[in-house]
């Protein structure tokens, strides 16, 4: 018998099943593809073709190029995360939590593994490791693509400040992790991946936008919308990068500090609620 802690054992077990699941790689691949396409490819094509009207209205060609060169990586890293990245991480969390109910794998684990709490904490830790990996790989891809742009344009490479890079990587992790943990909670709540993934996508991509729209004319709805995860993730990224309106989901609805605190509250509350449900509910 191993001397490692139950949580560490459960984390290793969960990482093993996660890394061998093609669905996990498909979701991560979809994010990296979207990030490359919307973050670099379209901007570069727009710049190279000289057509300033293409999705970058208001930005000069010089600004466009600066954004996709290495010094623009910190801002670029986080801009797709409040909406697309977050939605895909929420799908990932919902899949990893919800699928085990239908397949009966939670039941199997609870009858012969460590405690339910240790098993769930291990699973949440494994999800966190995956999200951290996704953020780092996204950073590496962004750096690689920006270096590619610099090489194509024979532009001098100006590296971003290490502090900026670290700060934005931290923000990226907070935003992506928040969505992943909310997805995990939805997977536990719905006890299945289908309903939770569907709800998550509709919520992240549609409902929050609608509520923010309605909130412009209704004070109570506006106050409610300011508590929502997407609004706060978007406001955190918008506030910290100072770029709102350029990317979907990046907004300035909520003050940056308040947005940061709200994101952290979601990061703490979502796993705690999921753990409470896992501990208390009957497994049928």
């Amino acid at each position, binding site marked *: 018998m191993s001397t490692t802690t139950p949580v560490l054992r459960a984390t*290793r077990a969960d990482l093993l099943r996660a890394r061998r699941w093609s669905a996990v790689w498909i979701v991560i691949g979809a994010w990296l593809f979207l990030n490359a396409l919307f973050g670099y490819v379209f901007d570069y094509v727009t710049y190279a073709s000289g057509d300033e009207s293409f999705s970058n209205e208001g930005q000069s060609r010089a600004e466009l190029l600066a954004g996709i060169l290495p010094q623009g990586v910190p801002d670029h890293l986080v801009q797709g995360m409040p909406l697309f990245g977050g939605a895909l991480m929420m799908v990932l969390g919902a899949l990893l939590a919800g699928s085990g109910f239908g397949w009966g794998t939670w039941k*199997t684990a609870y*009858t*012969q593994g460590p405690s339910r709490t240790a098993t769930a904490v291990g699973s949440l830790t494994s999800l966190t490791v995956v999200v951290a990996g996704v953020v780092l790989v996204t950073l590496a891809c962004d750096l690689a693509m920006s270096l590619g742009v610099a090489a194509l344009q024979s532009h001098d490479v100006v590296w971003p400040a290490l502090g900026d890079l670290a700060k934005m990587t931290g923000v990226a992790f907070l935003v992506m992790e928040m969505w992943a943990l909310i997805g995990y909670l939805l997977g536990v709540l719905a006890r299945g991946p289908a309903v939770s993934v569907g709800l998550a996508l509709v919520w992240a991509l549609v409902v929050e936008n609608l509520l923010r729209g309605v909130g412009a004319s209704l004070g109570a709805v506006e106050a409610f919308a300011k508590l929502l995860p997407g609004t706060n993730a978007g406001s955190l990224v918008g506030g910290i990068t100072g770029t709102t309106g350029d990317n979907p989901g990046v907004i300035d609805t909520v003050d940056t500090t308040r947005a940061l605190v709200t994101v952290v509250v979601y990061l703490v509350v979502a796993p705690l609620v999921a753990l409470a449900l896992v501990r208390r509910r*009957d497994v*049928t």
Partner: protein
Amino acid sequence: MNAHDTVDGAPELVVQTHDLTKRYGDRLAVDAVSMTVRRGEVYGFLGPNGAGKTTTLRMVLGLIRPTSGSASVLGRPAGAADVTARTGALIEGPGFFPYLTGRANLQVLARMQGLSDTAVDEALDRVGLGGRSRDRFKAYSLGMKQRLGVAAALLGDPELIVLDEPTNGLDPGGMADMRALVTDLARGGQAVLLSSHLLAEVEEICDRVGVIAGGRLLTESTVAELRGGRRLRVVAGPLDRALAVAMRAAGDDGVRVERSDDGDALLLEVGDDGVPDLVRALVAEGVDVHEITQTERTLEEVFFEMTADKTLEAVR
């Protein structure tokens, strides 16, 4: 002293439930079940579909909370972390990741328990899945899935193994192998709590049996006790005089008349010493004795006698 006995000579109880009850709304799924499973025995849990077997097992494993009553496993509350670590279970079908191979599925469980891959390979070999362990779970037949479920339950040599219908989906050869495996486990000191609808299987491998119907535990005893003593089948005539003599020997409620096209017969239980007395009494009363044979009740007959009453009650 037996290796499985405690110091005071009493058998060590691996599972003990007290008035275990589970209610879903108006429906009483399990009604005050008190059962015991001892170390080193194979305990058969018998009952018709919907009797409450799986619900009881789920409570014993800590998967669901009882509405009232309690279950202790290995001396601790059911479902406690230090209990599940010493328990293996296959309950209501095997639950595995379909995209992983059989071996990788067990590796996931082994990682959770801190076991090596050697333990995984041993468990796979023990259920005869060694040759197919690198196939994906979703490609397995029903029987292979069931074997993998049993292999998972064996991981880490748990002290209690709970198997819910373990021979489901197995071919006759696989069923025989599974029975041999279960017997072997008990011989090694592990307690096996087994639910089954196959009475012959229970009769063959179980030391003790609990019969459950309508959520209530009707009886708990050894298979031999449950089947009762030997039974006499008497073909004699005239029937009314033979019946009167038989009732004097076995009591008014101790005789049944078995009707058939080949002729009616009397079924009654008397001790070995009572047989000559019965024959003498029949002859003395002028009864013609055509045939007298000793039979043993099968578990199936006992089971149906017990559960039929309960089922009728439920229907009413």
